[in-house]
């Protein structure tokens, strides 16, 4: 049972006239009132946090609703052209596509690496190694995202441009019956999705590794001992016992990291440019090489260009914000539900 020390203060009837509080079982009224006031002040600090949420929702919805009365939500959610300033086109799908591609690629980088790092830190690493590597990984999350964006634009893109375009013959023509297949990685444009995905991937590794590591460490040692007792190797125990036992925590970390990638702004704005487009289909890798735009980058573009403070473009920014907010909020709540499910399994 919880034994938090939270006394209920006495109160009420002040000391009768003539009796000094010191020998009575009461304190002076001024002190009691003063401390109650302090209590209210402190409580109001906490309530302020609710006001922040209310403020966010109000701020976003206010202008977003105005926007959706001017531009129909159907056009917004199904339109395939986003060109607010030039063409008055407010279709959000290119932005969603851009966001999804970046998120997918960065997840492909971060999720396996993060999980691997978590397994290493939790199961294999010595205390000394852990004490060095864990903070080192945290640094990855601490670097300002502008700097990541800058590094992507100025260092990573030129690096890849030196190597690409690249043609790899996966299936040479000499094999009968199987059609020839050449994998062509196209040349990179200056602003491209690949560099952006790489830095976002690096940036979210610590989210995956830190939360997954907590989940792995929370697996009771008795399970590991059982495995070793049956003659399993460390590899078996780690991959077949510990990781499956920590699945909910790992999945929760994945969801949180993806949510973070969706909300990332500066790195993608700087590295990806401002050419929203729908995905290219036959040659999937083309999508990595071209410039695109995410929801967040579109918001930044509007903010930078628009100084009027009203009009459909300005309001579109809020509509995008509301969309983004709903997506990330639902993902975070999903992660929390997954985590809670995990907690129940062990207690």
């Amino acid at each position, binding site marked *: 049972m919880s*034994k938090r020390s939270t*006394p209920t*203060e006495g109160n009420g009837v002040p000391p009768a006239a003539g009796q000094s509080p010191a020998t009575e079982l009461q*304190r*002076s009224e001024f002190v009691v009132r003063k*401390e109650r006031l302090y*209590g209210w002040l*402190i*409580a109001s*600090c*906490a309530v302020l*946090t*609710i006001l922040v*949420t209310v403020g*966010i929702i*109000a*701020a*976003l919805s206010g*202008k977003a609703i105005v926007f959706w009365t001017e531009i129909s939500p159907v056009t917004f959610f199904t339109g395939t052209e986003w060109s607010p300033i030039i063409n008055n086109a407010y279709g959000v799908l290119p932005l969603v596509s851009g966001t999804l591609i970046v998120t997918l690629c960065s997840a492909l980088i971060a999720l396996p*690496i993060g999980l691997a*790092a978590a397994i*290493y830190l939790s199961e*294999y690493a010595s205390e000394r190694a852990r004490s060095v590597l864990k*903070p*080192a*990984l945290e*640094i*990855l999350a*601490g*670097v*300002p*995202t*502008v*700097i990541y*964006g*800058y*590094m992507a*634009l*100025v*260092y990573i893109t030129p690096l890849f441009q030196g190597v690409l375009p690249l043609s790899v013959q996966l299936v040479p023509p000499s094999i009968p019956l199987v059609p020839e297949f050449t994998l062509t990685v196209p040349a990179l444009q200056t602003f491209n999705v690949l560099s952006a995905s790489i830095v976002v991937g*690096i940036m979210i*590794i610590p989210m995956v590794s830190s939360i997954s590591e907590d989940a792995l460490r929370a697996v009771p040692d008795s399970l590991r001992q059982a495995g070793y007792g049956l003659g399993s*190797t*460390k*590899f078996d125990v780690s991959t077949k016992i510990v990781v499956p036992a920590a699945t909910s925590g790992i999945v929760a970390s994945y969801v*949180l990291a993806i949510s973070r990638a*969706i*909300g990332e*702004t*500066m790195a993608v704005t700087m590295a990806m440019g401002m050419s929203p487009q729908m995905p290219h289909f036959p040659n999937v890798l083309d999508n990595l090489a071209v410039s695109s735009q995410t929801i*967040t980058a579109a*918001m*930044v573009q509007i*903010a*930078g260009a628009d100084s009027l403070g009203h009009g459909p473009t300005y309001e579109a*920014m*809020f509509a995008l914000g509301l969309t*983004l*907010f709903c997506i990330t909020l639902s993902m975070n709540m999903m992660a*929390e539900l997954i985590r809670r499910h995990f907690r129940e399994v062990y207690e």
Partner: protein
Amino acid sequence: MASGGASVDRLHGSTDVRLERLKGRLFEIALVAATLVGIVSLVVLFGYIAFDTFQPLTASIQWYLIYIGTLVTPTAAFTLYARRHPPIREANAKAFAVIGGALLVSLVTYIVADALDPYDVLLYVLFGAIPPAVIGAYARRSPDRTYTGPAVVVSTLVGIALAAGLYGVLRPIVGIIAQWVAYVGIVTLPVGAIVAQSVSRRWSLRRAALAVALVLVGTLAVAVGALVAGIEPSLPVVLFSGAVVPIGYVVGDTVANEPEGRIGVLGPFVLIGSVALGAFIERSVGVQGPESYLTPSLLLNSWHGRNAFEAGIYPQLVGSIVIVGFMSLLAFPVAIGAAVYLEEYVSDSGWRGRLATLLEVNISNLAGVPSVVYGLLGLALFRNTLGFGTGVVIAAAGTLGFLILPIVIVSAQEALRSVPDSLRQAAYGMGASRWQTLRTVVIPEAFPGILTGTILALARAIGETAPLVIIAVATTTYTSPDGLFSTAAALPLQIFAARSHPDPAFRHGIVPATAVVLLILMLMMNTTAILLRNRYDRDTHE
């Protein structure tokens, strides 16, 4: 009893087992590689930035040799020597901490006061700080302290309100004194008060008076000296009172009272001396140094659109400091209050318990909201609803404040939670009320943890860009912000704005240099926080 060779084989080295072992080792190597890949990539990228900033290849071999001789060798030797003797290491750490901290605080004070107008600052300091200080000193003597708390708060607020209300009358009066005298009021007086406090507690009141007199006389001497030399005395005055005095006090105290470790205080001086020596040799011999973009002029000049070597980020530097400073004033009290409420005032059952759960769920949701959305909140609140103007300091400070609120609340909660319950029981058993327990036992005990959390939040805030872009903070300003409602500027925004500048000297020179400045600031803050955490952990494990 094993039945001969076959079982022995199964216990030791059959091929299956060897394969398993190989697989296991390969797996471990893969894991290590994965763990390192992110770190190594980041290091490589940082290497690029450093390379572009400092241009190491443009320096001649002689330059490197000079500095290896004058800087690297003595410092390395001293460090190796200090490592072996713990008291020396302690003294060394203390010296570095006080020198770094004092220099930092006095420089930041000077920069901010200079940007905002020293006379205004002096006015608010006099009216807002002196009444509570007097009340505090009086309260120390008197037995009944129930009224002290409210009295201090009320007097501060009244003082500030008075200063604001009578500003029109008071400002011209205050404006008569020389600028450096204003700085004496802002820096020397508080420093003197602190020194007096410390000395009177450790020795006697008479010594305290003597110490204060020394500080004042010294400051005046510095001012006079500067005037004679034809330099504006403000900065020397600030540096003397804000840096030299505390450094002298702490270093002198260590030298006098710690015979074993006193050599340790030489550490920072060895470092500074060797750099100075190296610079002297470099200049007199005329050796080619690196054409680094990170120069003092970068830090002191304003932005210049065309000439990279004259471009500076001073307004952005000041802007970041001012924004983050105001943000702290706004956000930290609220965040700590909320954490205290959630940890100390709330029960687990009843409607209070449900409220607490709601609050905590809300806070963890807020922590996951993307920073752009906070930008929109700031835009809607400060520009649309309150009409404060576009991209002003207070809007930036408020927006960032909302952003870091959940982070600080969570870390403060953890710090409060780490205070053992037995201490609270002891206090309540003694007849302390909840507020008294908080004030005398819980918060002092949790304070280092709370401080660590706030410093980390500061480091996060100073690097945030997206919200500032959304609230339209200016990306090219030529002057530092001079008040709450002036246009703001910020370091990370400068990186964003200049990233595609046509001139490669900007793109590959000034921008990485700005990035390095930002990273150094964050590194300093993170290091401070980590050192604090380690020191605090060590203290509680005794």
